[in-house]
């Protein structure tokens, strides 16, 4: 729903760079380069950022 705060495997904090990553990719930068620049080096962390789908805005339309 929201980007995981830490990497599932190694425990690195990732959520803090997610918004910057999203901005860079929307500007047309290659995801791999954006991740390198943000210091996401290991593939365990990269898959978390790369495969994340932010659904909270969709779900926010139907509050409890």
């Amino acid at each position, binding site marked *: 729903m929201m980007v995981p705060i*830490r990497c599932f495997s190694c425990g690195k904090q990732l*959520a803090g760079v997610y918004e910057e990553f999203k901005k860079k990719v929307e500007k047309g930068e290659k995801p791999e380069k954006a991740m390198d620049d943000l210091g996401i080096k290991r593939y365990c962390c990269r898959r978390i950022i790369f495969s994340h789908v932010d659904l909270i*805005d969709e779900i926010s339309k139907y509050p409890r």
Partner: protein
Amino acid sequence: MTISIKKIDEKGNVSRYLVKGTSPALINAIRRSVMLHTPCLAIEDVSIYQNGSVLFDEMLAHRLGMLPIKTDKTYKLGDKVKLVVEKEGPCTVYGKDIKSTDPKIDITDKNIPITKLSKNQKLKVEMQAVMMPGKEHAKWQPAIVSYNEIPALAVSKECNGCADCEKACPINIIEMKGKKPVLKDQYNCTLCGACVDSCGKEALKLSFNKEEYILAIEPVAGLSQKEVIEGSIKAMVEKSKGFAKSLQKLK
């Protein structure tokens, strides 16, 4: 045998050190001691007074628990600190919105999104962070630590200087010096072995020094690299002392 440590480089949050005069067993003991026995702060108890966001209370508490908290040196095992967050939508609640009752304690990464609130939704949460070792839960790991071997390229007489290995290296750290390949940057070698495989004469071999290792430390809890290693060694010494004490009672 004395163990020495020297800094190799620092990239962002990750520092790499060259440790000499050690063994895989010892350097792994340091790594495990950081992971399991070096305490740091993490949120353990969460009281939710109001949670209007679409995230369920359990998910919210889990996200808060994962947050990196700047740990102060003066804090000892079992010490507690209270944190509060109060927000009203529409907004995104970030790490920076969490207020601590102790000015020394803070959230290290201020840009972490915790939850999103839409109009008229309120969030009021009180949290308690506790000093604990990583043995209890991975959220109390103060750093991500790894170590690796340092390679050296052993070239035998069969080498004809064809430079195939230079071309094969994916990160271009092999250089032809005269007619022999040389490893330019042994600290950044990824140990992929492409050079060894590319050699038609089977003249290359990667050899490793059994007493030198690279120790990479990436702190996540606001402790410095030095404090992390110091903490791990202290934990190891205390454990050995306890063992020595019980050994004396042995008949």
